[in-house]
């Protein structure tokens, strides 16, 4: 069993936006997820993180690139062939209620993905559905009820149960907590963490919620305007980000402890339009460390130790700047 579960290389998605213009939502994104590993894809709205996720599940077709799932090149498959693989790659959606068929009972919603596993009979499907309802801490009574009879947090648990019922290897979590109340959010995040450990799941956790990411994920990839600017172990990145954008993003997180004051790192200016981006680093117009070469060519991904890569010419100097927290 290979350690690498998912390998994405040079994934690109271009949307035509009329008048011959192009919106490069995702450009040359590469990352890997090992078995049982949770990788966070972090970025603000419009950074292409959701588009990346949707390409992985073939909900939209990428323009270019390769996606290897457990050694299979999934982009070479037809949609029909890919359906056989779907039970192994499931997804949890951002909108808890809207992602559940409103006129179906919860049991049927959860069993729906099992239709792709014809070896299971009706009794076995029901057994599995009740099993995952237990895993997400909803009782058996939920089986016969309708989605609108649950709270948003419970609905999201149903969504998680549906994603787990086929016993997938990889679960794509598309902002699973951003529609929830803060109190419920913590419960769901704990549940996701527990399930990952219990079942050895791999996650691709798409989020702009940095505290959530820190809680659940072992590795982080930070996206800005369609590109991954920095990847690494969660703690490494949170302690000492090496890309100016990561640094600005992470220093914007508010921590409850006023003693752990952060050295604020603020970017000025507006995000450039993602339509017809100029060559060079996308952050060049806003970066306090910009140099002439930043404007002429996009910086390559440089490796900084084990599993750490940064796309910045000045990452070395950034490293010298030290960590974020000034205890």
């Amino acid at each position, binding site marked *: 069993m290979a350690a690498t579960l998912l390998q994405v290389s040079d994934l690109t998605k271009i949307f035509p936006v009329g008048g011959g213009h192009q919106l490069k939502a995702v450009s040359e994104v590469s990352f890997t997820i090992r078995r049982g590993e949770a990788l966070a894809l972090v970025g603000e709205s419009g950074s292409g993180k959701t588009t990346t996720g949707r390409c992985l*599940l073939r*909900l939209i077709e990428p323009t270019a690139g390769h996606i290897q799932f457990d050694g299979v090149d999934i982009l070479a498959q037809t949609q029909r062939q890919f*359906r*056989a693989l*779907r*039970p192994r*790659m*499931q*997804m949890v*959606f*951002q*909108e808890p209620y*809207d*992602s*559940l*068929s*409103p*006129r179906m009972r919860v049991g049927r919603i959860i069993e*729906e*993905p099992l*239709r*792709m596993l014809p070896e299971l009979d009706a009794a076995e499907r029901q057994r599995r559905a009740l*099993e995952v309802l*237990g*895993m997400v*801490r*909803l*009782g*058996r*009574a*939920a089986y*016969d*009820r*309708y989605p*609108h*009879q649950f709270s948003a947090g*419970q609905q999201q648990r149903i*969504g998680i149960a*549906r994603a787990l019922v086929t016993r997938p290897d990889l679960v794509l979590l598309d902002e699973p907590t951003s529609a929830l109340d803060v109190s419920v959010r913590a419960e769901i995040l704990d549940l996701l963490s527990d399930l990952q450990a219990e079942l050895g799941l791999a996650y691709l956790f798409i989020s702009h919620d940095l505290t959530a990411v820190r809680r659940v994920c072992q590795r982080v990839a930070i996206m800005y305007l369609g590109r991954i600017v920095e990847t690494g172990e969660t703690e490494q990145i949170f302690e000492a980000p090496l890309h100016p954008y990561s640094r600005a993003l992470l220093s914007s997180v508010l921590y409850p402890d006023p003693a752990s004051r952060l050295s604020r790192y603020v970017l000025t200016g507006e995000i450039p339009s993602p339509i017809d981006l100029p060559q060079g680093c996308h952050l060049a117009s806003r970066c306090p460390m910009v140099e002439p070469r930043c404007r002429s060519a996009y910086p390559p991904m440089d490796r900084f130790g084990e599993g750490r890569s940064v796309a910045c010419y000045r990452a070395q100097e950034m490293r010298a700047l030290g960590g974020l927290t000034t205890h």
Partner: protein
Amino acid sequence: MSSDNPSLPATPLPRVGQQTAWRDFLSFTRQRGGFQLGLAIVALSLGLAVFGPHIGPYPTETALPGMPLQPPSWRHWMGTDVSNMDIFSRVIAAPRIDLTIALVSTAIAFAGGVALGVISGFFGGGRGVPKLLSEGIMRAADIIQAFPVFIFALALVGFRGPGTENVIAALAFLNIPYFLRITRGAVLQVRERPFVEAQRCAGNSEWRIAFVHVMPNALTPPLANISPTIGFSILLTSGLSFVGAGVPVPTPEWGSMIAIGAPNMMTGQWWTALFPGLVLGIVILGYALVGDGLKEFLDPVNKR
């Protein structure tokens, strides 16, 4: 695993959603006189469709002995016509044929329109064969709707000759585009909702998503359209019968009764055409009122 959950009771709860829906409907009805009137008329017309031919005081298809064209009296509430048939008995017997035609043709139009609407809505804007299918359906609907309805119905019936089945077929065909468009509009909204994508992730085929997951959530608008379509079909049936292209003559039918009575109107026997026309108008009004009420009741924006 964990059967002891504090947030959920152990026994299944009653179907809260369905009970409230029924209660909502009752309180909605109570507040609307027009809707009540419509419901009463619809119920009465359905009752007459079943029992009408049997409860009239006189036979409906045979002439009575004596003078024709008797004015309304205690013996003949609506008078008699030129063949000396009792108009009241015939008027209340007419729903049997008029409603059968309207209900059957509307049912066919609903089934066909919804199915085609789901296909054209769900696959519209896509690629390949489904897209062509979707486009083809819409263009066909455009063509059908480009003709004046009555002329087209007349042409269809004229093509195959008068007769109940042919009227049903013509009306069903004419009404399909309306159900199609209404359904398509609803499907275009529903297909963008995230649960559709969730079903894709679950491994459903596109056709299954369209008919098992999207269609049940897009049925409200076409359902609300059923009642006015029935009314409209009754009117069209009568219209066809009036010009002799609908139900053949001795059968009691409002349109043909108006046609029989029309010449007598000129010579002063006003009752021959007035009563069938009046009842026809009231029944159509009833179905229109029910349709309006249902549309309002089912529209979440207008609700409360």
